[in-house]
Each structure stands twice: as structure tokens, then as C-alpha cells.
């Protein structure tokens, strides 16, 4: 095997794709679309809520909180106490007299039960967060008072309200809050690997089919070994994919670093439910328009498992491509390639729920699933190094085995024309000398 030949093929495959207009356009436009999609809901949500002044009926069974709430509501939310029966309050909400009604059960002051907000539209996210915060504060204050807290304690609590919410968020953030973010990241990474393997794998298959159906392949394999051609092609398209993803990452991060300040300019902190003096970082995070910091080792595993998964599946896509003369004929043969790629997607939610269950651990170590599932687990839970190492080792070993099998299929397939072969026929190719 000649590394030089593989390199020649790799760079030709890489450059011929990277400089195509379609590639350049996709590489530039996808992140722009992504930033717009991510930032738009936050912006629209904010604009929508800012225009509305809400009137909320208050059914206060504690009889102690109405005044404080009315004060907390300020200009934006008007709480109107009512003693009317629940049914008529509901009717009033339905007929649009009120935007919704807030039910505060008597037990609330004993630390039991929960406040409930009813509305026709479910309420915007921001509105809910605001009401939640207000009720929280008011109930807390009332309970402190009735527990006989000293006036000085009360004033500390009151003056600290905004500060302490921020502190809670940040301290617990390292566990609770960021685990939510990391779940989202893991989920996103799993899907990115799935789509990347799928799409770039298809590129490999298309490339193989094209070379075969326009017959140039026979000239090429009279100059290089079929295996060198296969490796060069897979690596070249892999390099293209990696470059595209790195470009996207850079553009998205860059995009958010521009979008953040822009959002901060047009939005006020209260609208986002954070403290008035919140940092720009806190605001953009609350607006959903920022990327949480991703641990570096997770990034490294992501790249390694993406490459491993791509190489493994690309070898199979190439083998399928070599057996057919046009894309449509590949449907049947693709089944055993697509199935192991889709199975992990079915397990995503199970693993998010219980990342350390035996099933999750086993599934995430199986080579055909690990590129998607191990990266997800690595994001949402602390996976022992041996597990992730084992998964990667197995993935790599499987790749070596599969590229060998694929190479043997490929070498026969690229020169076979006529009827599309079945699985049995293809299995026989592997044994040819």
C-alpha cells in the first residue's frame, strides 16, 4: 500500500469538492441560518411580551398575599383579586376579561401545595418565569415574617432578592443548570454525528457510484490499488466533512458573539427574568441565544467519535456504492448500513433519562452505536475513562475489520456491471482472490 498514492487521491477528492460552489455556499449559509433560527424565538418572544400588558385574576385563598403581589406586579402585570367562584373566574378568562388567573392555595404558606397559573394560551415562557419569581418572593417573605423573623433578617432577604437568585443559579448551575445545558449539547452532538455520518457517507457512496458508472475507475485502478483508491476517497471526504464542521463551529460561535450584544441592546434584563444588573452573558443565556461553554475533553471525544463513526460507515457506504451502477439500485443494499445508524437514535431519550443504566452503558460501547451514544453519555454524565476508551478501541478495531471487508467487496464491485447483486453474491466477493 502506498501512502503517497492515498495522499494524492485524498487531496484530489478534497479539493475538487471543497472548491465547488455548492460546498462553499452550504458552508457559509448553514451557520447564518442556524444563528437566525436560534436567536429568532428569543427576540420574537421578547417583542411579543413587551407589547402586552397582562391582567391576571388572583384567587388568593391565603388572604395574605394579594397586596404584596400587586406591588410586585408593577406596570406589566396587574393582579386583580377576586372572590368570585372558580367557575365564573374561568369563564372570565375564556371570554378574555383576564389574560389568566393565579390560584394560591391556603396551604401555600405552610410550605405545601403549589401556586397554579391558568390561562388560555399557556402563557409565554417569560410571563410564567416572571409570575413564578413574584410568587416565590412574596411567599418567602410572608413565611419569614410569620416565622417571626427579625426585621433585619427581612431587610437582608429583601435587599438580596435579586442577588441571591443569581447566586443560586450560578452555584447550583455547575450541577443542575449546566447539566441541562450539557444534555442539550449531548443531544445536539449525537444528532450532528448522526447527520454528518449519514450525509458524508452518502457523499462517499455517490463518489464511488459516479466513478464506476462513468467508467473512469478502471483507469484509476490500473494505476493504484483499489484499496488505496477506497482509502483516499474516504479520507478525502472525511477531511472535507471535518473542515466543513469546523468552519460551521467557528461561524456559529462568531455569530453568537455578535448576536449576544445585539440582543442585550434591545432587551431589558427584567424581560428575561434575570437580575437588572445581570451580565451580558447571563442575559444572552437567559434569552437562549448563547452557547454554554463545552468542556474540551468532550470536544475531543466528539471529534474522535465523529471520525471513527464516519470512517466505519463510509467504508460500508463505499462497499454498497461499488456494487451498484446508480443510486436507486442501492436502496436494498443500504438497509444493513442504515439500520445500525438509526438504532441509536431510538435510544437517545432512554439514555438521557438513565445514562448509567446497564443497557445504556452496553449500547454506548457497541461500535456501530458508540459514535452517537457514547458522545451523548460523555456529555450528560461522567463516563469512566475505561468505558469511553474501550468504546473507541472497539470502534477503531471494527473500522479496521470493516474497511478490509469493504475493500474486498469494492475491488470486485467496481468492475462488475449488469444486474445489481444480492447479499449472497456480495458475500461471495469477499472470498475472491
Amino acid at each position, binding site marked *: 500500500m502506498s501512502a503517497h498514492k492515498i495522499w494524492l487521491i485524498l487531496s484530489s477528492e478534497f479539493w475538487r469538492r471543497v472548491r465547488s460552489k455548492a460546498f462553499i455556499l452550504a458552508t457559509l449559509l448553514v451557520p447564518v441560518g442556524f444563528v437566525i433560527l436560534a436567536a429568532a424565538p428569543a427576540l420574537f418572544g421578547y417583542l411579543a411580551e413587551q407589547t402586552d400588558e397582562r391582567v391576571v385574576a388572583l384567587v388568593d385563598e391565603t388572604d395574605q398575599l394579594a397586596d404584596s403581589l400587586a406591588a410586585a406586579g408593577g406596570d406589566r402585570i396587574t393582579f386583580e383579586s377576586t372572590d368570585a367562584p372558580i367557575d365564573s373566574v374561568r369563564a372570565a378568562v375564556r371570554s378574555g376579561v383576564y389574560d389568566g388567573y393565579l390560584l394560591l392555595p391556603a396551604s401555600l404558606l405552610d410550605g405545601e401545595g403549589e401556586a397554579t397559573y391558568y390561562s388560555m394560551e399557556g402563557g409565554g415562557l417569560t410571563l410564567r418565569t416572571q409570575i413564578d419569581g413574584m410568587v416565590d418572593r412574596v411567599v418567602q417573605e410572608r413565611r419569614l415574617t410569620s416565622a417571626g423573623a427579625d426585621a433585619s433578617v427581612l431587610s437582608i432577604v429583601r435587599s438580596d432578592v435579586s442577588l441571591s437568585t443569581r447566586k443560586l443559579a450560578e452555584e447550583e448551575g455547575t450541577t443542575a443548570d449546566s447539566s441541562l445545558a450539557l444534555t442539550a449539547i449531548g443531544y445536539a452532538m449525537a444528532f450532528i454525528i448522526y447527520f454528518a455520518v449519514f450525509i458524508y457517507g452518502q457523499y462517499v457512496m455517490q463518489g464511488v457510484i459516479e466513478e464506476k458508472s*462513468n467508467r*473512469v475507475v*478502471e*483507469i484509476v485502478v*490500473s*494505476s493504484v490499488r*483499489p484499496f488505496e483508491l477506497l482509502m483516499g476517497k474516504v479520507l478525502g471526504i472525511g477531511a472535507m466533512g471535518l473542515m466543513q464542521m469546523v468552519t460551521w463551529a467557528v461561524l456559529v460561535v462568531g455569530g453568537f458573539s455578535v448576536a449576544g450584544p445585539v440582543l442585550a441592546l434591545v432587551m431589558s434584563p427584567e424581560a428575561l427574568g434575570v437580575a437588572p444588573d445581570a451580565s451580558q452573558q447571563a442575559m444572552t443565556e437567559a434569552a437562549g441565544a448563547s452557547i454554554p461553554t463545552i468542556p474540551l475533553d468532550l470536544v475531543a471525544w466528539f471529534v474522535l467519535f465523529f471520525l471513527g463513526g464516519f470512517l466505519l460507515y463510509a467504508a460500508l457506504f463505499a462497499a454498497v456504492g461499488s456494487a451498484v451502477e446508480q443510486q436507486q439500485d442501492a436502496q436494498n443494499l443500504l438497509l444493513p448500513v442504515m439500520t445500525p445508524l438509526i438504532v441509536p437514535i431510538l435510544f437517545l431519550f432512554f439514555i438521557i433519562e438513565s445514562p448509567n443504566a446497564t443497557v445504556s452503558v452496553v449500547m454506548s460501547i457497541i461500535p456501530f452505536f458508540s459514535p452517537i451514544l457514547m458522545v451523548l453519555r460523555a456529555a450528560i454524565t461522567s463516563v469512566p475513562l475505561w468505558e469511553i476508551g474501550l468504546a473507541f478501541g472497539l470502534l477503531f478495531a471494527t473500522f479496521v475489520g470493516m474497511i478490509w471487508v469493504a475493500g474486498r467487496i469494492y475491488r470486485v464491485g467496481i468492475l462488475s456491471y449488469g444486474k445489481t447483486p444480492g447479499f449472497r453474491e456480495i458475500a461471495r466477493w469477499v472470498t*475472491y*482472490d
Partner: protein
Amino acid sequence: MAHLEVSNVTKRYGDTVAVDDVSFSAEPGRILGLLGPNGAGKTSTIRMITYITVPDAGGIRYDGETVGPWSQQRMGYLPEERGLYKRLRVKEQLVYLGTLKGLSKAEAADRADHWLGRFDATGWADMKTEELSKGMQQKIQFIATLLHDPSLLIFDEPFSGLDPINADLLRDIILELRREDRTILFASHRMEQVEQLCDDICLMARGDVVLRGPLRDIKEQFGKNTLVLEFDGDDHFVDQLEAEGRVRVNTRSAHRAELTLADGTAARTVLDRALAATDELYRYERTAPPLNEIFVEVVGEDEARRMQEEAATAPAG
């Protein structure tokens, strides 16, 4: 320049024996015609010579050594089914294929320029291959075959699909390569092309070599039992001769007939009949049989007919 030796080569695909114990050799400065119908094992044999596949048994040596990646760099191969990367620009394509044959980029670029000039195609260098006409693409394909200055050249049905001008161009190039003492293998099922170009032939049928040797020797071996007549007037004498079993008609038109003498028929008989029947006789020639007839004799009528049908349906070359 070196010699190619194929010895006792066998190749199986599953249960099918594509090539069965085949031996022949090709010499520098000569053109070896590899003849046979589709399915005779020509392409399978060529793929082993070009080291695209390897034999199950037997060996192929070039310049005294078993073929391998090293020999791929010294051979130029023009496959029967031709193709190029459609979206690459012409020169880029040539440079890429040249580097795969072991040329440096600069070398490949220089030679691409040289050959494009030679084919009056310098202006195409920056065009995308798919923008070229079929004939232009053929030229690019020849250049790709010759770019790395190979000492062994293999042409599989090189004239199929060529317009007459390009066919002449290719014929000139092949003859030029022969003068330069390169070893040339020319596979075809079209006898008249082989007859025009080749020094040696190797006739294959059903995976076997059925006849091989220098073309001239083979023709002599089959004797001068063929007559060519050109005439004006009544051609009924040909039908009569055939009906009497004295001759077999190879080809025939209104003013021309090519006949094979049946055993025991004196050539003189045909001349007498022709003189008696026609208004004018322009040509009477006793000659060696055309390759076509030799092939019929060697492989039998059925196989030969099959092959001629294939030749008739193949694109003119």
C-alpha cells in the same frame, strides 16, 4: 523496452472460469492482437496484465519480473469502456491521472501541455471535461494513456466509437509507438482491424487460446485457398460454383466475390467459369485466407457466427 510473458494463467469468478490456462507473449516493437468474441476472456486477461486483478494460477511477467504496482507505472491502458472525471478541467484531469502513474505534478503538467499541443487541443486545457464532445474526450483519454511514457501499451477495442478522423489519428499513434520499440497489446473482436495493424495474434475463445503466432506464419499455414474476383456482368457462376460445392462464399457484392476453395477444387476451374460468364474480369487473385476465415476454421462455424453478430452490432470503428 521489454517483453511481456503470460504463462499458464487461470482466473475464476465463483464457478465461472474466465481464463483457462492461457499463455502467450508480446515483444517490443511489435503489436500483438488479442482476438476473440466477448466473453472469450480478453478483458479478464488484460485486467491481470494491468494488475487490476491477480491470477488464481500461473504468472505474468513483464521485463522478467512479476507484474505489480511497479509495472502499472510503466504501462498505459485504454479500457474498452472509457470514462473521465466529468467535472475536472482537462489539464487538471491529465495531471491527476499522470501523478497516479508516478509523475511529479510539474512533469505531468509539462507533458499534458506537450500532448495537448500535439492533438491541437491546447485551447481545451481549462475546459471542464463534460463540456467536451465525445471525440474530444477520446483524445483526452489517449493522452491520459500516453502521458507517463509507458513502455507497454494496452488498447482494448480502441477504435470502437471513434469517428474516422480520430480512428486514423489513433492508428498513426499506435504505429508510431511501435516504431519506438514499445510493446503493444491490441484487443479486439474486429478481425479486419487486427489484420491491418498486428504483427502477432493470439486468438481466444471461451477462456482458451486457440491459435497464436506471427500473423504472416499463421496465414501461410492456412495456405492460399482464397480467391478474390472483381468483374462486370452476370454473376450466376458464383451461385453455380457454390451449389456444386466447389467453393464457399466469404463475401459477395454485385461486382466482387471472395471465395474459399473447397478441397479438391482447382483454382483454375473458378477462373474458367468466371471468364466464360462475365463481360469483363478486372481481378483474379489467389491469396491467403482473411483472418475471419481462419477464425471460422479454428473455432467452428457457430462460435464464429456469434462473434460476427457481435461485431456487426458493435459501433463502427
